């Protein structure tokens, strides 16, 4: 493993893995405590529409995916803010339509079609320097938001109706959480792919939640746990020559099972 580090793509992979994991830990915590896991799944799959569009128009893939994911986040935020009961039907719809748009755009794109498996299951070994920049800026942005607006985000997440009474702009923070989720999902697609991204956003968070007494500790602990899982997963993937995204998820799931057994916690 150590000698592999001399390759630039391997350095990029490790760096990207750590950046993405920390971002997923923080944002995953917000997604879990706000019960937005299904919403995040919807955004992840909708971003495939953006990938398709970018391929068709010849734009940078992650630019297209970001635009699509953020648009989906704003749409979902608007739909879910008021009525949260029957919204699962609409999210399911957005989820499937987003993917369908992606497939159609790639169908009608002329010439060679990109390796779509890479977007579905991740391609961490293909991380470019620009991707690293984008990931770093996003992580810094997330740090800034959750530290500076911690009390507002906490209030909105814990009891949005009360936060509203205390003059906090619930709509703004709810939308902000979903937009940050969308951007985090887009960078996480590079590492584990859009199908596996939900596991990355939830497994470390679940463990951290049981060990934390406050949301702040939970966010940073999830970040650390996610980073550990990613590094272990990458080592596993390198050693046994397996897909990196799937390896990260399997390693996470194994540690999750160990955690449950060792602490004798009920799953729910």
């Amino acid at each position, binding site marked *: 493993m150590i000698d592999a580090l001399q390759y630039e793509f391997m350095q990029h992979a490790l760096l990207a893995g750590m950046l993405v994991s920390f971002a997923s830990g923080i944002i995953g915590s917000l997604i879990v405590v706000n019960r937005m896991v299904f919403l995040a799944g919807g955004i992840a799959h909708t971003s495939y529409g953006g990938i398709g569009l970018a391929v068709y128009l010849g734009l940078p893939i992650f630019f297209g995916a970001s635009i699509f994911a953020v648009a989906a986040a704003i749409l979902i935020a608007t739909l879910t803010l008021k009525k949260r009961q029957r919204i699962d039907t609409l999210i399911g719809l957005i989820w499937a339509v987003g993917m369908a748009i992606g497939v159609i755009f790639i169908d009608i794109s002329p010439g060679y079609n990109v390796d779509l498996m890479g977007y579905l299951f991740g391609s961490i070994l293909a991380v470019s320097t620009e991707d690293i920049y984008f990931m770093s800026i996003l992580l810094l942005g997330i740090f800034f938001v959750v530290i*500076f607006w911690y*009390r507002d985000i906490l209030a909105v997440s*814990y*009891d949005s*109706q*009360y936060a509203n009474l205390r003059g906090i702009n619930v709509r703004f923070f709810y939308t902000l959480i979903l937009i940050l989720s969308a951007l985090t999902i887009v960078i996480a697609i590079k590492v584990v792919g859009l199908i596996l991204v939900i596991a990355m956003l939830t497994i470390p968070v679940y463990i951290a939640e049981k060990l934390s007494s406050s*949301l702040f500790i939970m966010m940073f602990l999830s970040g650390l746990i996610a980073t550990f899982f990613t590094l272990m997963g990458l080592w596993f993937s390198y050693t046994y020559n397996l897909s990196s995204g799937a390896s990260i998820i399997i390693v996470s799931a194994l540690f999750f099972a160990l955690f449950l057994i060792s602490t004798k916690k009920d799953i729910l």
Partner: protein
Amino acid sequence: MKVIDIKDLYFRYEKQSVLENINLQIEEKDFLAIIGPNGGGKSTLLKLILAIHPLQKGEIYVLGKSPSKSLGQMGYVPQNTNINIDFPIKVIEVVMMGHTRKERPLLGYGKDEILCAMGALTQVGMSDFAQNKIASLSGGQRQRVMIARALCANPKILILDEPTSSIDINGQKEIYKLLKQLNTYITIIVVSHDISVILEYANKAAHINKNLSYHDISDKHSTFHTHGNDEHFCEIELLQMLGSENCNTCEGENPKWKLKP
């Protein structure tokens, strides 16, 4: 000055009229119990007072101003405090959410907010639990924390929506004792299904079932007669009296309120 002044208030959800011709004046340091059948409009009235719902027809003045301008003076304890029990949050963080301060520190919480929250927790007898996770508390303790959160704003009016619906009998008594203490300097409005509130603690009662009937029950022992020496009170009589103007409309909606001759 009236603490809350409601004039000719009407409210409807789409096609269904919920409140009609509501007139209500609440005096300073009143302990008003709002009772009535499910779906009778109790919570809707609270939400109008708290500016959660917009006014449709009629007027509401809270401390002489519109409800949205007086939000800082109102403490609110919502109906269901069992939401998000597993949320990783400390008791003191929940209480500090109630603090209403215009300017806020750049990061985290100000010293005055922490002091204020600890003061509110002391008032409800929960200061020892400040650093505990909210999940580790019992239903009654959690309810006290929610009252502390409302008190953290130093409110002139405390509004509670069925504060004892999820706690055992001893816990309920404790909560009402606490409210009675707070009532020496705060106006209290409580929605409740619990008859003992009206009998032991409230001095005013309002029965809402679309319309409102208002009763001053501060001298309830002379107003109502009790059975026997143990001051046992007949629930049915009270309901008959309080809801007499609306009895025909509450029939069948909720068995608890159904009156038998």
